[in-house]
Protein backbone atom coordinates (compact mmCIF):
# COMPACT_ATOMS: atom_id res chain seq x y z
CA UNK A 1 0.00 0.00 0.00
CA UNK A 2 1.40 3.37 -1.00
CA UNK A 3 0.92 6.01 1.61
CA UNK A 4 -0.33 9.45 0.71
CA UNK A 5 2.16 12.09 -0.41
CA UNK A 6 2.58 14.96 2.00
CA UNK A 7 2.44 17.85 -0.45
CA UNK A 8 2.88 20.55 2.18
CA UNK A 9 6.13 19.00 3.29
CA UNK A 10 7.25 18.56 -0.31
CA UNK A 11 6.54 22.22 -1.03
CA UNK A 12 8.31 23.37 2.12
CA UNK A 13 11.43 21.35 1.29
CA UNK A 14 11.36 22.60 -2.29
CA UNK A 15 11.19 26.21 -1.10
CA UNK A 16 14.00 25.63 1.40
CA UNK A 17 16.15 24.09 -1.33
CA UNK A 18 16.20 27.57 -2.88
CA UNK A 19 18.72 28.53 -0.20
CA UNK A 20 21.09 26.18 -2.02
CA UNK A 21 20.07 27.15 -5.54
CA UNK A 22 19.96 30.94 -5.19
CA UNK A 23 23.71 31.44 -4.59
CA UNK A 24 24.40 29.19 -7.58
CA UNK A 25 21.95 31.15 -9.71
CA UNK A 26 23.71 34.31 -8.58
CA UNK A 27 27.09 32.97 -9.72
CA UNK A 28 25.76 32.11 -13.15
CA UNK A 29 23.96 35.42 -13.83
CA UNK A 30 26.83 37.51 -12.53
CA UNK A 31 29.34 35.60 -14.64
CA UNK A 32 27.29 36.44 -17.73
CA UNK A 33 26.83 40.17 -17.13
CA UNK A 34 28.66 43.23 -18.35
CA UNK A 35 30.20 45.27 -15.49
CA UNK A 36 27.62 48.08 -15.84
CA UNK A 37 24.78 45.65 -15.04
CA UNK A 38 26.20 44.94 -11.59
CA UNK A 39 24.32 47.58 -9.60
CA UNK A 40 21.40 46.84 -7.29
CA UNK A 41 20.94 43.51 -5.56
CA UNK A 42 22.48 41.74 -8.54
CA UNK A 43 19.81 39.07 -8.81
CA UNK A 44 18.34 40.30 -12.08
CA UNK A 45 18.90 38.29 -15.24
CA UNK A 46 21.54 39.72 -17.57
CA UNK A 47 20.11 42.07 -20.18
CA UNK A 48 23.13 41.61 -22.35
CA UNK A 49 25.42 38.58 -22.12
CA UNK A 50 29.17 39.05 -22.07
CA UNK A 51 30.79 35.72 -22.95
CA UNK A 52 34.21 37.37 -22.92
CA UNK A 53 34.11 37.12 -19.10
CA UNK A 54 34.96 33.46 -19.49
CA UNK A 55 37.68 34.10 -22.04
CA UNK A 56 39.21 36.77 -19.79
CA UNK A 57 39.07 34.55 -16.71
CA UNK A 58 40.46 31.64 -18.71
CA UNK A 59 43.47 33.73 -19.74
CA UNK A 60 44.00 35.62 -16.49
CA UNK A 61 44.04 32.61 -14.19
CA UNK A 62 45.65 30.30 -16.74
CA UNK A 63 42.63 28.07 -16.18
CA UNK A 64 43.68 25.05 -18.29
CA UNK A 65 46.90 24.72 -16.30
CA UNK A 66 45.17 24.93 -12.93
CA UNK A 67 42.33 22.61 -13.97
CA UNK A 68 44.86 20.09 -15.25
CA UNK A 69 46.78 20.27 -11.97
CA UNK A 70 43.62 19.79 -9.94
CA UNK A 71 42.55 16.88 -12.12
CA UNK A 72 45.97 15.27 -11.92
CA UNK A 73 46.19 15.63 -8.15
CA UNK A 74 42.62 14.42 -7.64
CA UNK A 75 42.91 11.37 -9.89
CA UNK A 76 46.33 10.50 -8.49
CA UNK A 77 45.16 10.84 -4.91
CA UNK A 78 41.99 8.79 -5.47
CA UNK A 79 43.69 5.93 -7.33
CA UNK A 80 46.63 5.62 -4.95
CA UNK A 81 44.42 6.00 -1.89
CA UNK A 82 42.15 3.17 -2.99
CA UNK A 83 45.02 0.84 -3.88
CA UNK A 84 47.12 1.44 -0.78
CA UNK A 85 44.79 2.38 2.06
CA UNK A 86 42.55 -0.64 1.50
CA UNK A 87 45.59 -2.90 1.61
CA UNK A 88 46.84 -1.45 4.88
CA UNK A 89 43.37 -1.76 6.33
CA UNK A 90 43.20 -5.39 5.23
CA UNK A 91 46.49 -6.26 6.91
CA UNK A 92 45.32 -4.57 10.11
CA UNK A 93 41.82 -6.03 10.08
CA UNK A 94 43.08 -9.60 9.65
CA UNK A 95 45.78 -9.37 12.33
CA UNK A 96 43.93 -7.92 15.27
CA UNK A 97 45.27 -10.71 17.45
CA UNK A 98 48.79 -9.35 16.94
CA UNK A 99 49.91 -6.53 19.13
CA UNK A 100 51.91 -4.79 16.41
CA UNK A 101 48.85 -4.37 14.21
CA UNK A 102 46.61 -3.29 17.06
CA UNK A 103 49.05 -0.55 17.99
CA UNK A 104 49.39 0.40 14.33
CA UNK A 105 45.64 0.85 14.09
CA UNK A 106 45.56 3.15 17.11
CA UNK A 107 48.62 5.00 15.81
CA UNK A 108 47.01 5.79 12.46
CA UNK A 109 43.56 6.59 13.79
CA UNK A 110 44.73 8.80 16.62
CA UNK A 111 46.21 11.15 14.01
CA UNK A 112 42.61 12.09 13.21
CA UNK A 113 42.77 14.36 16.20
CA UNK A 114 46.04 16.06 15.43
CA UNK A 115 45.09 19.42 13.95
CA UNK A 116 46.86 20.25 10.71
CA UNK A 117 48.23 23.62 11.92
CA UNK A 118 50.74 21.89 14.19
CA UNK A 119 52.49 20.15 11.31
CA UNK A 120 51.86 22.55 8.46
CA UNK A 121 54.97 24.64 9.06
CA UNK A 122 57.41 21.72 9.40
CA UNK A 123 55.83 19.74 6.57
CA UNK A 124 56.05 22.75 4.25
CA UNK A 125 59.80 22.92 4.89
CA UNK A 126 60.15 19.18 4.54
CA UNK A 127 58.36 18.95 1.20
CA UNK A 128 60.33 21.93 -0.12
CA UNK A 129 63.54 20.22 0.96
CA UNK A 130 62.57 16.95 -0.74
CA UNK A 131 61.48 18.68 -3.95
CA UNK A 132 57.89 17.66 -3.24
CA UNK A 133 56.42 21.18 -3.21
CA UNK A 134 54.37 20.27 -6.29
CA UNK A 135 51.58 18.03 -7.61
CA UNK A 136 53.43 14.83 -6.69
CA UNK A 137 53.84 16.04 -3.12
CA UNK A 138 50.15 16.86 -2.88
CA UNK A 139 49.16 13.40 -4.11
CA UNK A 140 51.52 11.77 -1.64
CA UNK A 141 50.22 13.81 1.29
CA UNK A 142 46.54 13.19 0.47
CA UNK A 143 47.26 9.46 0.37
CA UNK A 144 49.19 9.53 3.65
CA UNK A 145 46.90 11.89 5.56
CA UNK A 146 43.77 10.16 4.32
CA UNK A 147 44.98 6.92 5.89
CA UNK A 148 43.66 7.77 9.36
CA UNK A 149 40.06 8.11 8.33
CA UNK A 150 40.05 5.56 5.53
CA UNK A 151 41.47 2.76 7.67
CA UNK A 152 38.60 3.39 10.03
CA UNK A 153 36.07 2.86 7.24
CA UNK A 154 37.83 -0.04 5.52
CA UNK A 155 38.62 -2.15 8.60
CA UNK A 156 35.02 -1.98 9.83
CA UNK A 157 33.89 -3.32 6.47
CA UNK A 158 36.61 -5.95 6.09
CA UNK A 159 35.69 -7.46 9.45
CA UNK A 160 32.21 -8.15 8.08
CA UNK A 161 33.68 -10.24 5.22
CA UNK A 162 33.72 -13.94 6.20
CA UNK A 163 37.20 -15.45 6.38
CA UNK A 164 36.11 -18.73 4.77
CA UNK A 165 36.61 -17.25 1.32
CA UNK A 166 40.23 -16.46 2.03
CA UNK A 167 40.91 -19.74 3.77
CA UNK A 168 39.66 -21.68 0.76
CA UNK A 169 41.94 -19.69 -1.54
CA UNK A 170 44.93 -20.22 0.75
CA UNK A 171 44.34 -23.97 0.70
CA UNK A 172 44.42 -23.75 -3.10
CA UNK A 173 47.89 -22.22 -2.75
CA UNK A 174 47.14 -18.52 -3.16
CA UNK A 175 49.50 -16.06 -1.49
CA UNK A 176 48.32 -13.28 0.83
CA UNK A 177 48.82 -10.81 -2.01
CA UNK A 178 46.74 -12.84 -4.42
CA UNK A 179 44.02 -13.23 -1.82
CA UNK A 180 43.90 -9.49 -1.33
CA UNK A 181 43.88 -8.46 -4.98
CA UNK A 182 41.69 -11.26 -6.29
CA UNK A 183 39.21 -11.75 -3.46
CA UNK A 184 39.18 -8.90 -0.97
CA UNK A 185 39.73 -5.86 -3.16
CA UNK A 186 36.79 -6.64 -5.45
CA UNK A 187 34.57 -7.20 -2.40
CA UNK A 188 35.53 -3.77 -1.08
CA UNK A 189 33.85 -1.99 -3.98
CA UNK A 190 31.11 -0.33 -1.88
CA UNK A 191 33.72 1.12 0.48
CA UNK A 192 36.00 2.00 -2.43
CA UNK A 193 33.13 4.11 -3.74
CA UNK A 194 32.76 5.89 -0.40
CA UNK A 195 36.46 6.49 0.09
CA UNK A 196 36.94 7.43 -3.56
CA UNK A 197 34.17 10.04 -3.47
CA UNK A 198 35.33 11.59 -0.22
CA UNK A 199 38.97 11.67 -1.38
CA UNK A 200 37.93 13.20 -4.68
CA UNK A 201 35.95 15.99 -2.98
CA UNK A 202 38.79 16.62 -0.55
CA UNK A 203 41.61 16.74 -3.09
CA UNK A 204 39.69 18.82 -5.62
CA UNK A 205 38.38 21.41 -3.17
CA UNK A 206 41.18 21.58 -0.61
CA UNK A 207 42.85 24.91 -0.15
CA UNK A 208 45.06 24.78 2.95
CA UNK A 209 47.40 21.95 1.91
CA UNK A 210 48.19 23.40 -1.53
CA UNK A 211 48.55 26.81 0.10
CA UNK A 212 51.34 25.66 2.40
CA UNK A 213 52.96 23.05 0.13
CA UNK A 214 52.91 24.36 -3.41
CA UNK A 215 55.44 27.07 -4.23
CA UNK A 216 55.59 27.34 -8.03
CA UNK A 217 52.57 29.04 -9.67
CA UNK A 218 52.65 26.42 -12.45
CA UNK A 219 51.83 23.73 -9.90
CA UNK A 220 48.86 25.56 -8.35
CA UNK A 221 45.46 23.86 -8.10
CA UNK A 222 42.14 25.60 -8.78
CA UNK A 223 41.37 26.89 -5.26
CA UNK A 224 44.93 28.13 -4.91
CA UNK A 225 44.67 29.98 -8.21
CA UNK A 226 41.39 31.56 -7.11
CA UNK A 227 43.11 32.77 -3.97
CA UNK A 228 46.11 34.09 -5.86
CA UNK A 229 43.95 36.01 -8.32
CA UNK A 230 41.35 37.30 -5.90
CA UNK A 231 43.42 40.47 -5.47
CA UNK A 232 44.11 41.01 -9.17
CA UNK A 233 40.43 40.86 -10.13
CA UNK A 234 40.03 44.12 -8.21
CA UNK A 235 36.53 45.33 -9.00
CA UNK A 236 36.37 43.21 -12.12
CA UNK A 237 33.60 41.17 -10.52
CA UNK A 238 32.05 39.73 -13.64
CA UNK A 239 35.34 38.16 -14.69
CA UNK A 240 35.93 36.99 -11.12
CA UNK A 241 32.54 35.26 -11.10
CA UNK A 242 33.22 33.66 -14.47
CA UNK A 243 36.38 32.28 -12.97
CA UNK A 244 34.52 30.99 -9.86
CA UNK A 245 32.01 29.30 -12.11
CA UNK A 246 34.72 27.65 -14.16
CA UNK A 247 36.44 26.42 -11.00
CA UNK A 248 33.19 24.88 -9.69
CA UNK A 249 31.87 23.58 -13.00
CA UNK A 250 33.91 20.39 -13.56
CA UNK A 251 32.86 18.71 -10.31
CA UNK A 252 29.31 20.09 -10.55
CA UNK A 253 28.90 18.57 -14.00
CA UNK A 254 30.22 15.21 -12.83
CA UNK A 255 27.86 15.42 -9.86
CA UNK A 256 24.79 16.12 -11.98
CA UNK A 257 25.36 12.85 -13.81
CA UNK A 258 26.63 10.74 -10.91
CA UNK A 259 24.40 12.25 -8.21
CA UNK A 260 22.66 9.06 -7.09
CA UNK A 261 25.86 7.11 -7.04
CA UNK A 262 27.68 9.81 -5.08
CA UNK A 263 24.98 10.04 -2.42
CA UNK A 264 24.63 6.29 -2.03
CA UNK A 265 28.42 6.10 -1.73
CA UNK A 266 28.48 8.63 1.08
CA UNK A 267 25.48 6.97 2.74
CA UNK A 268 27.12 3.55 2.74
CA UNK A 269 30.15 4.90 4.53
CA UNK A 270 27.93 6.45 7.19
CA UNK A 271 25.83 3.42 8.02
CA UNK A 272 28.78 1.09 8.32
Amino acid sequence: MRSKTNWWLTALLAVLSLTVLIPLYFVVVTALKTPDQLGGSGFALPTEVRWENFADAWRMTNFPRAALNSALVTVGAVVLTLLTNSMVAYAIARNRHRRFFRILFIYFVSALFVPFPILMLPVAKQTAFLGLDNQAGLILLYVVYGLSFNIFIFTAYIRSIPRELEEAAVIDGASTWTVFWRIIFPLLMPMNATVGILTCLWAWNDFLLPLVIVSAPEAATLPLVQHAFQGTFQTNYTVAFASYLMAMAPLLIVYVFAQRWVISGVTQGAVK
Partner: protein
Amino acid sequence: MSFFWMVLPALVLFLVFHTIPVLQGIFYSFTDSAGYGAWDFVGLSNYTALFSDERVLSAYLFTFQFALVATILVNGIALALAVGLNGRIRFRNALRGIYFVPNILAILVIGYVFNYLFSNSLPEIASALGIEALSTSILADPELAWVGVLALAVWQAVAFNVIIYLAGLQTVPAELYEAAALDGAGPWRRFRGVTLPMIAGFVVVNTVLSLKNFLQVFDHVVAMTNGGPGTATESISVLIYKGGFQGGEYGYQIANAVVFMAVIALFAVVQFRVMRNRGVSHA
Protein backbone atom coordinates in the same frame (compact mmCIF):
# COMPACT_ATOMS: atom_id res chain seq x y z
CA MET B 1 55.13 -11.97 6.59
CA SER B 2 53.27 -10.51 3.62
CA PHE B 3 51.08 -8.59 6.04
CA PHE B 4 54.11 -6.71 7.31
CA TRP B 5 55.11 -5.72 3.79
CA MET B 6 51.57 -4.49 3.21
CA VAL B 7 51.78 -1.99 6.05
CA LEU B 8 55.47 -1.15 6.06
CA PRO B 9 55.52 1.51 3.29
CA ALA B 10 52.48 3.20 4.81
CA LEU B 11 54.05 3.15 8.24
CA VAL B 12 57.29 4.69 6.97
CA LEU B 13 55.51 7.39 4.96
CA PHE B 14 53.24 8.20 7.86
CA LEU B 15 56.21 8.52 10.18
CA VAL B 16 58.08 10.75 7.76
CA PHE B 17 55.24 13.01 6.70
CA HIS B 18 53.09 13.11 9.79
CA THR B 19 54.75 12.06 13.03
CA ILE B 20 58.17 13.59 12.40
CA PRO B 21 56.72 16.99 11.41
CA VAL B 22 54.58 16.93 14.55
CA LEU B 23 57.62 16.18 16.69
CA GLN B 24 59.64 18.84 14.87
CA GLY B 25 56.85 21.27 15.55
CA ILE B 26 56.84 20.46 19.24
CA PHE B 27 60.62 20.87 19.26
CA TYR B 28 60.51 24.29 17.60
CA SER B 29 57.84 25.43 20.03
CA PHE B 30 60.63 25.69 22.61
CA THR B 31 62.70 27.97 20.37
CA ASP B 32 62.51 31.51 19.03
CA SER B 33 62.83 30.30 15.42
CA ALA B 34 61.46 32.66 12.79
CA GLY B 35 61.17 29.79 10.33
CA TYR B 36 64.59 30.45 8.83
CA GLY B 37 68.09 31.29 10.06
CA ALA B 38 69.50 30.78 13.53
CA TRP B 39 67.41 30.11 16.63
CA ASP B 40 67.84 29.72 20.37
CA PHE B 41 66.07 27.72 22.99
CA VAL B 42 63.69 29.85 24.95
CA GLY B 43 62.27 27.22 27.26
CA LEU B 44 58.60 27.68 27.98
CA SER B 45 58.48 31.38 27.28
CA ASN B 46 56.50 30.92 24.04
CA TYR B 47 53.85 29.12 26.04
CA THR B 48 53.67 31.64 28.85
CA ALA B 49 53.57 34.49 26.33
CA LEU B 50 50.57 32.91 24.60
CA PHE B 51 48.35 33.33 27.61
CA SER B 52 48.84 37.07 27.78
CA ASP B 53 48.69 37.67 24.03
CA GLU B 54 45.51 39.60 23.20
CA ARG B 55 45.56 38.42 19.60
CA VAL B 56 45.79 34.75 20.61
CA LEU B 57 43.04 35.06 23.19
CA SER B 58 40.77 36.79 20.74
CA ALA B 59 41.44 34.06 18.15
CA TYR B 60 40.44 31.39 20.69
CA LEU B 61 37.35 33.34 21.66
CA PHE B 62 36.27 33.78 18.04
CA THR B 63 37.02 30.16 17.13
CA PHE B 64 35.11 28.66 20.04
CA GLN B 65 32.15 30.96 19.65
CA PHE B 66 32.03 30.25 15.94
CA ALA B 67 32.52 26.48 16.30
CA LEU B 68 29.91 26.11 19.01
CA VAL B 69 27.20 28.09 17.25
CA ALA B 70 28.00 26.52 13.87
CA THR B 71 27.86 23.00 15.33
CA ILE B 72 24.48 23.58 16.94
CA LEU B 73 22.99 25.24 13.86
CA VAL B 74 24.37 22.73 11.38
CA ASN B 75 23.17 19.71 13.31
CA GLY B 76 19.80 21.22 14.15
CA ILE B 77 19.09 22.29 10.58
CA ALA B 78 20.50 19.12 9.02
CA LEU B 79 18.46 16.88 11.32
CA ALA B 80 15.27 18.85 10.63
CA LEU B 81 15.84 18.69 6.86
CA ALA B 82 16.67 14.99 7.04
CA VAL B 83 13.44 14.26 8.94
CA GLY B 84 11.59 16.20 6.26
CA LEU B 85 13.32 14.38 3.42
CA ASN B 86 12.57 11.07 5.13
CA GLY B 87 8.85 11.92 5.22
CA ARG B 88 6.20 11.00 2.68
CA ILE B 89 7.35 13.45 0.05
CA ARG B 90 7.65 13.49 -3.72
CA PHE B 91 10.89 14.17 -5.62
CA ARG B 92 12.93 12.83 -2.72
CA ASN B 93 15.97 11.95 -4.80
CA ALA B 94 16.02 15.28 -6.60
CA LEU B 95 15.69 17.26 -3.37
CA ARG B 96 18.30 15.13 -1.65
CA GLY B 97 20.58 15.74 -4.62
CA ILE B 98 20.11 19.50 -4.40
CA TYR B 99 20.71 19.68 -0.67
CA PHE B 100 24.05 17.89 -1.11
CA VAL B 101 25.38 20.34 -3.72
CA PRO B 102 27.18 22.75 -1.33
CA ASN B 103 29.35 19.88 -0.19
CA ILE B 104 30.88 19.42 -3.63
CA LEU B 105 31.94 23.07 -3.92
CA ALA B 106 35.29 24.39 -2.74
CA ILE B 107 34.64 26.40 0.43
CA LEU B 108 37.11 29.04 -0.68
CA VAL B 109 35.48 29.59 -4.06
CA ILE B 110 31.86 29.64 -2.89
CA GLY B 111 33.15 31.74 -0.01
CA TYR B 112 34.17 34.48 -2.43
CA VAL B 113 30.64 34.38 -3.80
CA PHE B 114 29.18 34.74 -0.29
CA ASN B 115 31.66 37.52 0.34
CA TYR B 116 30.23 39.44 -2.61
CA LEU B 117 26.65 38.70 -1.56
CA PHE B 118 27.27 40.00 1.96
CA SER B 119 29.32 43.01 0.84
CA ASN B 120 27.16 44.19 -2.05
CA SER B 121 23.81 42.45 -2.57
CA LEU B 122 22.61 42.19 1.00
CA PRO B 123 23.20 45.86 1.85
CA GLU B 124 21.41 46.86 -1.37
CA ILE B 125 18.42 44.69 -0.55
CA ALA B 126 18.38 45.87 3.06
CA SER B 127 18.43 49.55 2.18
CA ALA B 128 15.76 49.02 -0.46
CA LEU B 129 13.60 47.44 2.25
CA GLY B 130 14.53 50.21 4.66
CA ILE B 131 16.37 47.93 7.13
CA GLU B 132 18.93 50.43 8.39
CA ALA B 133 20.97 47.93 10.45
CA LEU B 134 21.87 45.81 7.42
CA SER B 135 22.36 48.58 4.89
CA THR B 136 26.13 48.42 5.27
CA SER B 137 28.18 45.27 4.83
CA ILE B 138 28.19 43.15 7.98
CA LEU B 139 31.64 41.87 6.96
CA ALA B 140 33.02 45.34 7.63
CA ASP B 141 31.52 45.41 11.12
CA PRO B 142 33.82 43.89 13.78
CA GLU B 143 30.80 42.91 15.88
CA LEU B 144 28.90 41.16 13.09
CA ALA B 145 31.51 39.90 10.62
CA TRP B 146 31.58 36.49 12.30
CA VAL B 147 27.92 36.01 11.36
CA GLY B 148 28.95 36.15 7.71
CA VAL B 149 31.58 33.46 8.26
CA LEU B 150 28.97 31.47 10.17
CA ALA B 151 26.43 31.72 7.35
CA LEU B 152 28.90 30.30 4.84
CA ALA B 153 29.96 27.51 7.20
CA VAL B 154 26.41 26.46 8.00
CA TRP B 155 25.29 26.64 4.38
CA GLN B 156 28.18 24.44 3.30
CA ALA B 157 28.25 21.91 6.16
CA VAL B 158 24.50 21.24 6.37
CA ALA B 159 24.77 19.49 2.99
CA PHE B 160 26.95 16.65 4.23
CA ASN B 161 25.16 16.25 7.54
CA VAL B 162 21.73 16.01 5.92
CA ILE B 163 22.90 12.96 3.99
CA ILE B 164 24.41 11.33 7.07
CA TYR B 165 21.28 11.95 9.15
CA LEU B 166 19.11 10.69 6.33
CA ALA B 167 21.18 7.50 6.29
CA GLY B 168 20.65 7.26 10.04
CA LEU B 169 16.90 7.79 9.80
CA GLN B 170 16.63 5.02 7.25
CA THR B 171 17.99 2.57 9.80
CA VAL B 172 14.95 3.19 12.02
CA PRO B 173 12.41 0.38 11.42
CA ALA B 174 9.05 1.66 10.12
CA GLU B 175 7.18 -0.63 12.53
CA LEU B 176 8.37 1.50 15.42
CA TYR B 177 6.62 4.54 13.98
CA GLU B 178 3.48 2.56 13.28
CA ALA B 179 3.42 1.23 16.82
CA ALA B 180 3.93 4.72 18.22
CA ALA B 181 1.26 6.14 15.93
CA LEU B 182 -1.19 3.45 17.06
CA ASP B 183 -0.48 4.46 20.63
CA GLY B 184 -1.65 7.93 19.65
CA ALA B 185 1.73 9.67 19.66
CA GLY B 186 1.83 12.86 17.57
CA PRO B 187 4.68 13.76 15.21
CA TRP B 188 6.68 15.56 17.89
CA ARG B 189 6.30 12.74 20.42
CA ARG B 190 7.24 10.22 17.76
CA PHE B 191 10.36 12.23 16.99
CA ARG B 192 11.34 12.60 20.66
CA GLY B 193 10.33 9.11 21.71
CA VAL B 194 11.30 6.98 18.72
CA THR B 195 13.49 8.76 16.20
CA LEU B 196 15.88 10.58 18.46
CA PRO B 197 16.84 7.62 20.67
CA MET B 198 17.28 5.42 17.59
CA ILE B 199 19.66 7.81 15.87
CA ALA B 200 21.38 9.10 19.02
CA GLY B 201 24.66 7.60 17.83
CA PHE B 202 24.54 9.60 14.63
CA VAL B 203 23.76 12.78 16.53
CA VAL B 204 26.67 12.30 18.91
CA VAL B 205 29.20 11.46 16.22
CA ASN B 206 28.05 14.19 13.85
CA THR B 207 28.07 16.79 16.57
CA VAL B 208 31.55 16.00 17.77
CA LEU B 209 32.97 15.70 14.24
CA SER B 210 31.37 19.02 13.27
CA LEU B 211 32.84 20.67 16.32
CA LYS B 212 36.28 19.26 15.57
CA ASN B 213 36.11 20.47 11.97
CA PHE B 214 34.77 23.90 12.85
CA LEU B 215 37.46 24.42 15.47
CA GLN B 216 39.97 24.20 12.62
CA VAL B 217 38.10 26.71 10.44
CA PHE B 218 40.39 28.25 7.83
CA ASP B 219 39.04 28.50 4.26
CA HIS B 220 35.81 30.18 5.36
CA VAL B 221 37.69 32.95 7.12
CA VAL B 222 40.16 33.51 4.29
CA ALA B 223 37.36 33.83 1.75
CA MET B 224 34.97 35.98 3.77
CA THR B 225 37.05 38.36 5.88
CA ASN B 226 40.68 37.24 5.86
CA GLY B 227 40.47 37.60 9.64
CA GLY B 228 39.18 41.15 9.62
CA PRO B 229 38.04 43.75 10.24
CA GLY B 230 41.24 44.10 12.24
CA THR B 231 41.56 40.69 13.84
CA ALA B 232 37.86 40.31 14.72
CA THR B 233 37.37 37.04 12.82
CA GLU B 234 40.87 35.61 13.00
CA SER B 235 40.55 31.89 13.80
CA ILE B 236 43.28 29.89 15.50
CA SER B 237 44.31 28.19 12.24
CA VAL B 238 44.40 31.52 10.40
CA LEU B 239 46.49 33.09 13.13
CA ILE B 240 48.96 30.20 13.13
CA TYR B 241 49.24 30.42 9.35
CA LYS B 242 49.65 34.18 9.23
CA GLY B 243 52.01 34.47 12.17
CA GLY B 244 54.00 31.35 11.32
CA PHE B 245 54.41 31.78 7.57
CA GLN B 246 54.32 35.52 7.13
CA GLY B 247 54.92 37.06 10.54
CA GLY B 248 58.28 35.48 11.46
CA GLU B 249 56.70 33.89 14.55
CA TYR B 250 57.41 30.30 13.58
CA GLY B 251 58.38 28.98 17.01
CA TYR B 252 55.77 31.03 18.79
CA GLN B 253 52.88 30.03 16.54
CA ILE B 254 53.89 26.39 16.74
CA ALA B 255 53.60 26.66 20.51
CA ASN B 256 50.14 28.02 19.83
CA ALA B 257 49.47 24.99 17.63
CA VAL B 258 50.64 22.61 20.37
CA VAL B 259 48.18 24.16 22.82
CA PHE B 260 45.53 23.92 20.12
CA MET B 261 46.33 20.22 19.69
CA ALA B 262 45.88 19.68 23.40
CA VAL B 263 42.47 21.31 23.19
CA ILE B 264 41.46 19.13 20.23
CA ALA B 265 42.82 16.04 21.99
CA LEU B 266 40.64 16.87 24.98
CA PHE B 267 37.61 16.88 22.70
CA ALA B 268 38.80 13.59 21.21
CA VAL B 269 38.94 11.93 24.61
CA VAL B 270 35.45 13.14 25.39
CA GLN B 271 34.34 11.90 21.99
CA PHE B 272 35.73 8.41 22.49
CA ARG B 273 34.14 8.23 25.93
CA VAL B 274 30.77 9.20 24.58
CA MET B 275 31.09 6.90 21.59
CA ARG B 276 32.01 3.93 23.72
CA ASN B 277 29.15 4.62 26.10
CA ARG B 278 26.74 4.74 23.21
CA GLY B 279 28.26 1.68 21.57
CA VAL B 280 28.41 3.43 18.22
CA SER B 281 30.40 1.96 15.38
CA HIS B 282 30.10 4.39 12.55
CA ALA B 283 32.56 6.68 10.92
